[in-house]
């Protein structure tokens, strides 16, 4: 017999003073060789930015190893719904394409949403990634970041026609 899990509740609007100072959004210090900026915005079903969301990342290191002491980051969104991380591209783990695991919390989310960010310059690896390929072809693009001059852009649409693909926890 197993115990029932404790129910989830929303993070609410006023979490930033409790959650957002540690860890930081810099998984590696800015300026680190090989570092990449990952930024984007969180939008609601009306296309409006979500200014009180918290984005958390979990990733392997550049060698493709999950380590307890590396790879967790957290960033609250600003008034424009924007978050920004500095990190490194993770290596491949067990044949998976490089990816970041992304959790988004917000007022109005009674449970967090779980998604993944894949890299736009890894077309071949992405084509062989079992998780990405299990997503409907016309929705895969919601999981691939866009390349910008200053880094990668990954928006999260919580609802609507362009809703980001979310995974069952």
């Amino acid at each position: 017999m197993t115990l029932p899990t404790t129910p989830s509740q929303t993070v609410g609007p006023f979490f930033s003073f409790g959650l957002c100072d540690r860890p930081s959004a810099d998984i590696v210090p800015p300026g680190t060789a090989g570092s990449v900026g990952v930024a984007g915005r969180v939008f609601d079903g009306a296309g409006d930015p979500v200014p009180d969301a918290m984005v958390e990342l979990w990733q392997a290191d550049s060698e493709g190893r999950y380590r307890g002491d590396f790879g967790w980051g957290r960033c609250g969104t600003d008034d424009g719904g924007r978050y920004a991380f500095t990190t490194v591209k993770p290596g491949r783990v067990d044949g998976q394409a490089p990816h970041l695991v992304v959790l988004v919390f917000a007022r109005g989310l009674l449970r967090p949403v779980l998604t993944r960010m894949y890299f736009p310059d890894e077309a071949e690896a992405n084509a062989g990634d079992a998780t990405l390929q299990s997503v409907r072809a016309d929705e895969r693009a919601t999981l691939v970041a866009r390349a910008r001059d200053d880094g990668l852009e990954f928006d999260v649409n919580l609802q609507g026609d362009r809703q980001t693909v979310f995974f069952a926890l």
Partner: protein
Amino acid sequence: MTEPIEESGQPPYLWPDYVSTRLRAPLKPLVIVPETLSEVTGPAFGDGDVGELDHDLTRRHGGEPLGERIIVSGQVTDVNGRPVRSALIEIWQANAAGRYVHDGDRHPAPLDPNFTGAGRCLTDDDGRYRFVTVKPGAYPWKNHENAWRPAHIHLSLFGRAFTNRLVTQMYFPGDPLFEQDPIFQSVRDPKARERLVSSFDLGSTVPEWALGYRFDVVLGGPAATPLEA
């Protein structure tokens, strides 16, 4: 994973009585994927992650905060009842007057210069944790006419895997605001709602000093624990 989430005791994404879910709840079905290392691993925490007084929200400033001093303690286990050790627990809450230290909180109740309302600790080898704080006040919000949140403490927990981390709220027994609170009521199973309510605990009450409340947490989690030390 095919069990409807509501029957598992978890709230749905869309719960229209909680107005903020209407435009934020994802409405497309979640995609079920096989577990990979990405889903079963997570950050590990150690003593360096918490300070000596991080668990005591009443000793962060020059004086003691106003309000009813309480002790919140409990045990974190997995679904098999095994203690989850070195789990990071972060809490945040309103002060005794029902006001958060947050620019967005416009409730006309006083801030307390001796209370911020954020703390953290790690569970011990038995999965146990303990915070010292003050009992938060109820506060109004604009979800519906004359809406008030029952007193609660927010908790964020990391278990063995990043994807099984939990953010929840701990309530206090017998709160008369439960019936009209759509966040509490979003958990449809009454027995599951009970798991959000702490119990008064004479055993952790410190004579002449503070009442104790107990709040145990059960984290979901993968069967495999590849990074467990």
